[in-house]
């Protein structure tokens, strides 16, 4: 959690945030998109970017995804739903880099690329998890406000993001990782270790994220599809005023699990691993602005 605040001291991170946001916002504009539900959502290849930004740029990628989605709303669909979109897309970029190293054992190479088969599988898993978590946040928010039913929006967002991430993600990582590394722009090489939170219980954090993410999604679908309908109607939600308490309250425990899980994860270990690589580039890091 700490690095999402300390990153702002570094000019390059600020710039990466702005650039990521701009790329995301610009490429989301449907120049040629493939509609699933016109007006609501479509297969958006640009949705691959948050995963890539997150893994390569760390917190700058997370903020960039969130801001980028918000700016994209500036082109026509600014509304309270944008808050949900902000949070959801933040997690889309946040989870990849936070959870990355918790899949590996001590001593394994944890550079953020897909160079081995294991890394490729981990990447796929992360894409799925992050897509679901993003869907949880956005669909929960919109349902709690009584705007869009969780089941509909949640599934669409999850599938949308996962498709883009799984189809385009690996090849993007293959093409972009070496270049970003060459330019010295990996977040692990810009930020110093002491500004990044240390892992507390990473395996547990990993598991909690899965439970919170997938569990929340399943429960949300169940409530939305009426499995608990009888019970709630009987409990007296007969007037039109009480909206979405079902999903609204029902999902909160899972969302809490997600947040707690992410707090248990770290990030510092990746920075330290990158530092050991060092090499001819040397240990001097770009200046920290006060």
């Amino acid at each position, binding site marked *: 959690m700490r690095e999402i605040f300390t990153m702002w001291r570094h000019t390059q991170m600020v710039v990466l945030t*702005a650039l990521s946001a701009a790329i995301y916002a610009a490429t989301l504009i449907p120049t040629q998109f493939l509609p699933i539900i016109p007006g609501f959502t479509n297969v958006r290849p640009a949705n691959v970017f948050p995963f890539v930004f997150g893994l390569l740029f760390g917190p700058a990628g997370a903020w960039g995804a969130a801001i980028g989605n918000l700016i994209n709303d500036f082109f026509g669909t600014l509304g309270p739903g944008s808050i949900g979109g902000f949070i959801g897309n933040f997690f889309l970029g946040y989870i990849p880099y936070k959870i990355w190293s918790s899949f590996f054992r001590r001593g394994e190479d944890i550079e953020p690329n897909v160079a081995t088969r294991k890394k490729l599988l981990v990447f796929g898993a992360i894409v799925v998890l992050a897509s679901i978590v993003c869907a949880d946040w956005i669909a929960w928010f919109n349902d709690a406000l009584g705007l869009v039913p969780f089941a509909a929006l949640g599934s669409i967002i999850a599938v949308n993001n996962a498709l883009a991430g799984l189809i385009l993600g690996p090849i993007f990582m*293959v*093409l972009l990782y*070496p*270049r970003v590394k*060459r330019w*010295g722009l990996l977040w692990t090489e810009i930020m110093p270790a002491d500004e990044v939170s240390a892992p507390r219980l990473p395996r547990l954090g990993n598991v909690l994220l899965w439970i919170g993410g997938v569990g929340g999604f399943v429960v949300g679908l169940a409530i939305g599809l009426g499995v608990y309908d009888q019970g709630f109607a009987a409990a007296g939600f007969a007037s039109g005023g009480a909206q979405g308490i079902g999903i609204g309250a029902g999902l909160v425990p899972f969302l809490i699990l997600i947040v707690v899980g992410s707090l248990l994860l770290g990030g510092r270990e990746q920075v330290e691993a990158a530092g050991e690589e060092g090499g001819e*580039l*040397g240990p*001097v*890091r*770009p*200046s920290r*602005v006060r």
Partner: protein
Amino acid sequence: MNLEVDEGEFVVIMGPSGAGKSTLCVSLNGLVPHFFRGKMEGEVRVRGRSTREARVGELAREVGMVFQDFEAQLFSTNVALEVAFGPENFAVDREEIARRVADALEQVHLEGYEDRQPATLSGGEKQRLAIASVLAIAPRILCLDEPTTDLDPVGKMGIFQIARALREREDVTLVVVEHETEETLEADRIVVLSGGRVVADRPAREVLRDVDLLHRARVMPLQVARFFKERGVPREELPLTPEEGAREFRRRGWRVSQDGYGELLATDRSRVARYGEPVVEVEGLCHRYPGGVAALEDVDLTVRRGEFLVVAGQNGSGKTTLVKHFNGLLEPTSGSVRVNGGETRRQGMLELGQKVGYVFQNPDHQIFSDTVFDEVAFGPRVRGMKEGEVRERVEEALAAVGLEGREKEDPFGMTKGERQRVAVASVLSIRPEVLILDEPTTGLDYAEQRSMMDLVKKLNEDGATIIIVTHSMWVTAEYGHRVVVMKEGRVALSGPVREVFAREEMLRSFALRPPHIVSMSNLLGHTVLSVEEMHRVTEAG
């Protein structure tokens, strides 16, 4: 590296790509060592203060830095805010900022632009805006890293005028990295770098007379100086400008040989006779962009097979819009464009792309594969060719551009010149008959530019029809057969290069200036297009 610059001096830094010019610049304001990795030995002192001890933010008050890539330096939503950014960071108070903004904009001739969005400005205006945004900080030292690359001739002149005015007005110390030798006559000193070292540090005119030094440093020598040196004139007496050259030519009693000149004209004519049938025919072409802006009005043009056509003109004159019609990227709003006899409207881009290859200005706008092979193979593969044929074509294309054996390399690890060649190869692999190149020499040093243009010339000699869009006048003179000058969407001038360059007055009205050797020959009553040609027609009295 050892270097000293006195207050108020105007120093120009020259050298080949990779010589360390940009690194020198960023050492002046502390970016080295604070921003870059690596080790710095020795010391840089700016007005007595060591850059190691001060932070970049503090040094920024003293040393204003304008980088080459003006796009990447502009980030505000309007011009006034862009210029105000610097002083804001130094907590200058509001009224003072307002004063400085107005002042800075005036110095760069952008008064009245306060509310414009930077994205809507032309290249030259953007570069001037970048300068203004640094001037507003009121630094005593101004460092400009290749401020005129990518600019059209008007833009270039504008920058140097500003530099001149700055010196006169403010007594600012100027350090400018520059390729354009013709503009460096104004400097006090020229420092030549190569391989990270200073290889010359002498008064400007002295360096400009040392033609061999400039050659070794892969910098284009002044054509007039080079001509006289190659005829044996001693260094101290070498003229530098066309006027000086013409005077010296007459003083020595040399003459332009009519026979020699006649031969040049005959070569031109026989070349024209070898052209084939028309390959691109444009009649009454008009193009209007969706917003209603008329980009082209009533353009007529014929390009014959085997020609080497140059399309010139200021930014916004319509030259790129014109050539984009030839491969189907744009369709005429009215009028006709025919390629190989068929209307472009009726042929798809895939079909047209087979005949007309288009190489875009910035190779990074095309490259997406992680190996040179895959990049060059893209065109053939997309057309469904079998791997065997694909391999053959890739090898052929790479050989043509001089990159054979480098199939497995990552294009992004290569230099800009090499990436440009990869971009050309990836178009050549489709084997088009016509090749369009948009600004093929931008961002390259002199040696790389020659190398690229010689490659294009060879392709032309092997039968390809070449159309290039360029600002570079010497490239137009030495390589082009015919030139079309666009102005405000219309064809303003068209004809063989030799004829068009003879009309200097007219060219000036389009803000174009022929290269120095051409001007010199015009002063002597004939039009010669290169130093070699000048030699061929000179008779010692």
